[in-house]
């Protein structure tokens, strides 16, 4: 995880699956504690399942609750597939 001053970026690598869901939730909670805009760099995500998707949706819901901008800045092909499958490729990713 690396942070830049204007906008924080959280980079997640590897699997976003149910096996790591608990750990990733902690990571996201922590990253969102800072009130600045957060970008998720998911270009290193190798695999994503429904649990991973729920995490993204939950993070989105949390940020929306606080009026904190959150967007997926980069998505790996695997993640993109997943988002497309659920019709989310436009609502979560930037552009």
């Amino acid at each position, binding site marked *: 995880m690396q942070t830049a001053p204007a906008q924080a970026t959280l980079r997640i690598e590897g699997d976003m699956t*149910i096996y790591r869901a608990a750990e990733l*939730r902690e990571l*996201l909670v922590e990253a969102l504690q800072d009130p600045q805009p957060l970008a998720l760099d998911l270009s290193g995500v190798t695999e994503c*399942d*429904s*649990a991973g998707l*729920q*995490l993204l949706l*939950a993070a989105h*819901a949390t940020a929306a609750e606080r009026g904190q901008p959150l967007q997926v800045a980069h998505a790996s092909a695997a993640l993109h597939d997943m988002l497309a499958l659920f019709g989310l490729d436009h609502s979560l990713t930037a552009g």
Partner: protein
Amino acid sequence: MDLDDALPTFIAESRELLQEMEHALLGVLTAHEPQHAVNAIFRAAHTIKGSAGLFALDEIVDFTHVLESVLDRVRDGTVTLDERLVALLLGCSDHIGMQVEAVASGIRDPGTADRAVPLLAQLQRHLGDDGAAPAAAAPAPARPAPAPTLASFAPGECGAGHWHLSLRFGPDVLRNGMDPVSFLRYLGRLGRVTAVALVPGSVPALQALDPERCYLGLELALDSDADQDAIEGTFEFVREDCAIHILPPHSPLADYRSLVAMRPEPAAVLGALLVRCGSLDPAALATVLTDADAPPMPAAPPEPVEGTPPRQRAQEAKAAEGASIRVDADKLDRLINLVGELVTASASAGLVARSVRNVALQECQATLATLVDEVRDSALQLRMVKIGTSFTRFRRMVHDVAREIGKDIALVVSGEDTELDKTVIEKIGDPLTHLVRNAMDHGIEPAAQRLARDKPAQGTVTLNAYHDSGHIVIEVGDDGGGLDRERILAKALERGLVEPGRPLSDSETYALVFEPGFSTAEQVTNLSGRGVGMDVVKRNITALRGSIAIASTPGRGTTVTVRLPLTLALINGFQVGVGSSVFVVPLDMVDECIEFRDDGSRDYLDLRGKVLPFIRLRALFDIGGSPPPRQNIVIVRHAGQQVGLVVDTLFGESQTVIKPLSRLFAQARGISGTSIRGNGDVALILDIPALVASRESGSRPLVQGSPLLV
């Protein structure tokens, strides 16, 4: 999965589910929490429908579908359960039973479909009568016409193949190793997923998120030529956990309306998703939403709507499943037979070990024998089932018969948890049915007569089961008029069953009703009916090495007591010797053994102040030779009676595998079976109930002449 192989499982499961359904139906009106029973009924219908669909048993699917729709309304409270509806639902459960049996036997009875028609018509009435419109124009039962106002069909952008799927995944789907993603991908193989819409707001914020729980809900449109079974089949493995609705192409708007009404999301939110999926256009949506508050239209069963298991139901199902496996009864029987052989082999090994006087060998053998005993006990335990399930069917019978004969009769069941061998349970069904039926027909008096006798108008039939000295005792009681002693005696005299002038005790008198031919007679009194078939009942019970007794208090009721051995295969035996013959007494029945000096003068002795009658086995079975100076008496007990058996020697305990007597010896009284001893000799198993009874009723010879049994 090979479906043909799975069919027997479907049949067995359906039978069980139907039994559950029946049980729930019979209890639902009096239950504390009727919702549980209603859920159980719904679940049974729903599961049968689902499984029947897998096997393409359309008749069952069509029928259960209508039933399910009615049950759904019962669940949400739009239809109230009353006695009439319960009776109708029982009829439906029977009908499904017939359909399942037809599948099981492979014989299609064309009459079955006809029988469904009146049931369906009645079911439809319940689907129709909750709105303002009466069911004046009752729809054709099998293929109901679409509702008039919502008769227009969903437009469906993509023409012929536009399916709408509404999916709510259960919380445990992910933990159970399923992933909604895989279903989406699979649907992609059946056709093209044209639109997916996540139900907004279903996933909570991070703080509240249980990362392993599934929150997802989807509305999606599928363009596919597949049939409903194939699409439903996608969700086969999560059907229980999830709420899945599948609307085929051109579903009437009424179905969309019921979908919207059924989901917890606000109608407008869900409506927007339907539009986004292209399943409804905005105009159609407006129709759906405006009508959403109106009462459901008559005669519009939500035909394509798949079940909506709420979470609670999924959990209940899980609890009910338990940790058990299904095993072929044949396999168990084979195991029990092998264990029987093992017991015999172990006994002969023990004999040999003792005779060679090798201590180490004897020790090994002793360990082995202990293990064999344990194996035997566990193996027999496998076949033990609770009697409760067979009691359940009597609830139904009492319910039906009471209606049929116009009496108000309640069934009180106790001891359902008492276990006995499955083979015994299977065989006592008929005799018990007979006894219960008799109690209802002839035991319980008509209401007027009951009131005149200061008894509650509602009669009570009781079924009770408990264990007693290696036997199971089943009591069938009623609080009716009791047996009429004088009438029985008169009848018995008339039939020549008793000699005139001979005094009979009450129990002897009542036992006369079990005599063959006691009552082949006219139905004049409630007494004559009592005897119908009682001899058959007795014969069946005796064939199971059981006994039957009857007790009655005039004006208060009658209780028939059936005693049966717990198992038909093995007993703990006590071996005794007379001359060169060896007999086995079931150990459970042995009270004690005492030494005996016979002066030949009498047939009883003083046992600590009580009179103990005894039987000389040597004389009884006409065994040659003279008795040794010191004999022994084995005191046995059956049904509260004690009798002594005079024998030469006591050999002690042994595991005894029962071999039934061949038909040749069917007339030999006092013997219930044979057994092979460790040394290969044959030992005869004494029929203690018959011996005790013979002592009681006096001097009837057990064996006529009979050199056979030496």
